[in-house]
């Protein structure tokens, strides 16, 4: 079964040794462990059978003949577009990028920024972490390097648009992004996966983020793939002293989604937030795993994760807050709220606290329920019809996350997109 997924990576003589080594580590790990199975606790709710039954072919480089949907031509951003993992200069728009910024494909970085990436590549996510990370490492090559040297403040959001649609059936896209902020650097990055084609895609993306002292980052991942796709994502973040990161995660599309976010507050006084919303309909599976590790004193973390499920959709929230023995004065709050719009929708929520320090303030809460009928009646009693009242409440529910998205034009589109999708599901 696993062999179908592996095409022996080509040996590129010109790539540095450490790259070849990472690839072969990935290859060996994948051959040894294969894909995770539902017998593994951490993958209990992620049924991978349909994914494994499909023979996916790595995307071939080739002509790109498509346009960015007009709705997503955001103004006032730097835009870089990847189509099935391959950079499309024609669909990118990068005027007057700050000179000090390094923005290039990972494969270019193998030769042009070899020393730099060697320090960061696969440092936060081991190739052997699981079958997907192994497979990803074995195919190491596609993805982006984004490097902000000390003090660089990116004046506009960087919109990284991932489109599908080279027309190849059952395409596998393995991506590895490196986002590095040196001391005092600051950026807003929108990582946006947009499905437009009718072909099935399997996207397997690793994102390693390193934020040095007093750097600031807003990173927003929007997954809006087509309904037949598979999307496996693993994001890991390292935060140094007094750094601040806001992570937003929006999952709307794909048949099966597995989204891991691991935030490591390694430096004293660092603060991080994770705000997530996922929307599932039909038989979508939305499997969300987050870890926040407080490894140093005086760290702050906030997590708000919201799920909306209808039809036979299924959601998982598995959120761990870990506080290391010397991470005193940690201040952490975690909340997971889920809305079930149909009796057939299901949610498994598993918030966990693991605290090894004694002087901390940590709280967590989780709730799953239906829309409040009294609130619906209240809206109706003011003249708002039931369908609009439902939409209003769902917008309000998702709004507690989406209202803070660091790009207002994208925010408005997300709201209408979510209500459209749920209206299709006949709520």
């Amino acid at each position: 079964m696993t062999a179908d997924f592996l095409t022996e990576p080509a040996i590129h003589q010109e790539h540095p040794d450490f790259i070849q080594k990472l690839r072969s580590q990935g290859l060996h790990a994948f051959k040894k462990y294969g894909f995770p199975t539902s017998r593994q606790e951490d993958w209990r709710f992620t049924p991978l059978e349909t994914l494994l039954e499909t023979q996916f072919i790595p995307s071939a480089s080739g002509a790109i003949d498509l346009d960015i949907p007009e709705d997503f031509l955001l103004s006032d951003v730097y835009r870089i577009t990847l189509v099935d993992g391959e950079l499309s200069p024609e669909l990118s728009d990068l005027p007057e990028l700050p000179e000090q910024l390094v923005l290039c494909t990972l494969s270019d970085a193998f030769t042009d920024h070899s020393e730099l990436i060697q320090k960061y590549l696969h440092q936060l996510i081991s190739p052997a972490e699981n079958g997907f990370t192994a497979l990803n490492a074995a195919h190491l090559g596609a993805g982006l390097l984004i490097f902000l040297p000390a003090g660089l403040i990116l004046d506009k959001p960087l919109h990284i648009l991932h489109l599908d649609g080279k027309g190849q059936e059952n395409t596998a896209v393995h991506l590895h992004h490196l986002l590095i902020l040196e001391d005092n650097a600051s950026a807003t990055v929108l990582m946006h996966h947009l499905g437009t084609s009718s072909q099935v895609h399997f996207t397997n993306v690793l994102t390693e983020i390193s934020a040095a002292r007093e750097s600031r980052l807003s990173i927003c991942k929007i997954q809006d793939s087509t309904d037949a796709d598979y999307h496996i994502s693993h994001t890991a973040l390292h935060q140094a002293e007094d750094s601040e990161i806001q992570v937003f995660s929006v999952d709307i599309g794909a048949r099966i989604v597995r989204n891991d976010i691991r935030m490591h507050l390694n430096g004293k006084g660092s603060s991080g937030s994770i705000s997530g919303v996922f929307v599932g309909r039909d038989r979508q599976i939305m499997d969300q795993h987050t870890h926040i590790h407080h490894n140093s004193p005086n760290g702050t973390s906030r997590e708000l994760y919201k799920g909306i499920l209808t039809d036979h959709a299924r959601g998982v929230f598995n959120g761990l807050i870990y506080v290391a023995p010397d991470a005193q004065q940690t201040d952490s709050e975690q909340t997971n709220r889920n809305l079930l719009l149909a009796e057939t929708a299901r949610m498994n929520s598993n918030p966990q606290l693991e605290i090894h320090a004694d002087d901390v303030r940590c709280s967590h809460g989780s709730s799953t329920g239906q829309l409040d009928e009294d609130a619906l009646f209240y809206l109706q009693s003011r003249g708002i019809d039931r369908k609009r009242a439902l939409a209003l409440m769902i917008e309000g529910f998702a709004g507690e996350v989406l209202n803070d998205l660091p790009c207002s034009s994208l925010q408005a589109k997300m709201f209408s997109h979510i209500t459209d999708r749920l209206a299709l599901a006949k709520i």
Partner: protein
Amino acid sequence: MTSTPLIDVHNLHVEVEGKEILKGINLTVKPGELHAVMGPNGSGKSTFANTISGHEKYRITGGTIHYRGQDLAEWSPERRACEGIFQSFQYPVVIPGVNNIYFLKTALNAIRRYREEEEVDAMDFMQLIREKLKTVKLDESFIHRPVNEGFSGGEKKRNEILQMVTLEPTLSVLDETDSGLDIDALKIVAEGVNQYRNPERSFVVITHYQRLLNYLEPDYVHVLKDGRIVTSGGRELSDKLELEGYTWLENNE
């Protein structure tokens, strides 16, 4: 000269979760009138209010409610609102994440659409709402907060009156709008209602105490007990209840 009743309730029986709460209510309210419905706890006051608004939990098992000559029974809650019926709730609910201003504008435009009137745009609505806020003495920050979230008891009730004066209903049913209010908030609410009164608009004011009625000048006072109106009269009836309490009714039976 007698005008047509705005609302005409005839021998109304209502069940809640299989239990009969209203056992034959008769009440006729004409345009411009303010009727007070008083009664002890559990007498069916809120059931009466919620039945008029169309909450599906309240099932009419007998009798009729006619509004402007039309039977209400089959109307959805939103249709009732669009036709000019408004309830100020005893316990206004929180609508998480929905801003008060967005909610009010959505409601006003829903009603205007129903009436085939032009919708109000954001700018005009802002101007309108600033005027209305003055009526209930609330500041502007209030409308940018989620509906009723973190509002004090008094703010919730003033928010109900704000909705009333914005949506401009013909029949307003105020369900214990005075409960939980301090004297200042009570006066603000009463002033809001008094300013809103005119010869076309009618009110059913439901209350346990008569203190709100000190400011409202009811035309009629009805006493509800065990699902029936046991006595009706003028203003003097509420004074009597204030002095003698609801036990006076028992002694009178």
